[in-house]
């Protein structure tokens, strides 16, 4: 038998299936490392990683706070700046034609190559790191929001014109609500990129001390051959990325669930 009915998945399975795969992979990892007596400075066992996570929790969670602070600030700046730039692009084709190539230039230049320059030019290290993360995260916001603001139903636009709507009425009542699905698509990508940008910038800056982020802990653990701590830091970065992504998905669902196809569940 074929058809959609055959593909129906129990909601519990959506969470349970990947968790089961993860648990099996961890068990296999633990067995292989124990069985073959792999030294922890090459591949630590999951138990050793968890041990390091508990042992070094204060150090690691402080660093996580620093990295997340940079990533979230960069994400907030990217949202505000990105939306403003998109509004500017939609207001004038000339502005878009003049500036969009530079936005693309910013996107295609590897952050690892320009981060040292930004760190040299900006005296405040924290600000420099935020700037690096913004450079990485802003493009999806600009490009998706611009696309959304432009993708207006032509019939609806004609209706507004027949009603002699002002530019601001068209913007606030038509373009902005209509662009939300595109904006949230950009936000999902930008949330992960802001974290990647923050970590890459921290690697380049290599700043230690009180304000050291997770990237610095990874560098330091690598030098000290403290591989369990390195894995623990890596795990925290990964989980933060997943949490950030889940947050954006939740916000998107909250805003679009009643009306946009992308967020409407099949049962609705």
């Amino acid at each position, binding site marked *: 038998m074929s058809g959609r009915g055959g593909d129906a998945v129990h909601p519990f399975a959506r969470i349970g299936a990947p968790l089961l795969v993860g648990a099996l992979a961890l068990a296999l990892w633990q067995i292989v490392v124990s069985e073959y007596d792999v030294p922890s400075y090459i591949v630590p066992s999951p138990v050793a990683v968890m041990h390091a996570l508990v042992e070094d929790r204060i150090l690691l969670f402080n660093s996580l706070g620093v990295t997340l602070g940079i990533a979230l600030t960069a994400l907030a700046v990217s949202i505000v700046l990105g939306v403003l730039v998109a509004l500017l692009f939609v207001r004038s084709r000339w502005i878009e034609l003049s500036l969009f190539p530079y936005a693309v230039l910013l996107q295609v230049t590897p952050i690892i190559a320009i981060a040292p320059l930004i760190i040299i030019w900006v005296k405040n290290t924290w600000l420099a790191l935020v700037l690096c993360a913004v450079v990485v995260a802003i493009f999806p916001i600009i490009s998706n929001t611009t696309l959304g603001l432009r993708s207006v*139903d032509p*019939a*609806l636009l*004609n*209706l*507004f*014109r*027949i*009603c*002699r*709507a002002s530019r601001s*009425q068209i913007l606030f*009542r*038509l373009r902005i*609500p*209509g662009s*939300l699905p595109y904006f949230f698509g950009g936000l999902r990508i930008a949330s992960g990129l802001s974290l990647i940008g923050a970590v890459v910038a921290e690697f380049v800056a290599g700043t230690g001390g009180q304000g050291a982020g997770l990237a610095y802990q990874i560098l330091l653990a690598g030098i000290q051959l403290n591989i369990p701590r390195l894995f623990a830091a890596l795990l925290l970065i990964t989980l933060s990325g997943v949490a950030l992504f889940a947050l954006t998905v939740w916000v998107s669902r909250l805003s679009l669930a*009643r*009306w*946009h196809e992308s967020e*409407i569940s099949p049962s609705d």
Partner: protein
Amino acid sequence: MQAVGVAKTYATGTRALARVDITVHDGDFLTLLGPSGCGKTTLLNLIAGLIEPDAGTLRWWGRELAATGAPGQRLAMVFQTPALMPWARIASNVRLPLDLAGVDPATARQSVASVMRLVGLSEVGTHFPRELSGGMQMRASIARALVNSPDLLLMDEPFGALDEFTRQRLDDELVALWAAHKLSIVFVTHSIAEAVFLSTRVAVMGARPGRLIAEIAIDEPHPRGEAFRGEPRFAAYCQRLSKLVAEAHA
């Protein structure tokens, strides 16, 4: 509304409309009938003031575009798609023209309730468009067009995407609305039967470039019920128009 010698060529070089003269009188139900690409929508957009003609003049209620800027609130339009804002509830969609015109909320609420009753949507004001069928969405679109009591209603193949049963039902309702509220309507369709059933006059258009071929008066009393569709006179009108459309297309 009066169009005298209006012509339109798009920037791409497509000559959409040769010189066309057409007048819509008060209480007219004028249908523009013709095959795809004969300039029906272009003519409707010109009447709506959405595009400007290359030649000729358009006058609404005795005034030209230069004097009025646009036909404004005395004119409303229903499009090929319902064109509802998917993020807004049906009642908010219907009251949009009033909100844009700055009508006070209490008056707007009354007007919306009255027009929703008129089209049989009173129960679904709090629904989102996606929760309604295609026919109900089109009714909401008509309600929105009627909410500020326009003098002239333009309809661009509004029922073209609906199934035949829904289409006939909405045709019946539209003609009843037109008769009850003494509206003036310019209706675009490529369905000959729909044109005969609805109109007081049918303007047949030909393609390449779009032009007016003939104007036929449908001298039949209103209301025209289901029985009219089965009458020999209905068939005769259809045959006559069909012949004209075929000639225009040849």
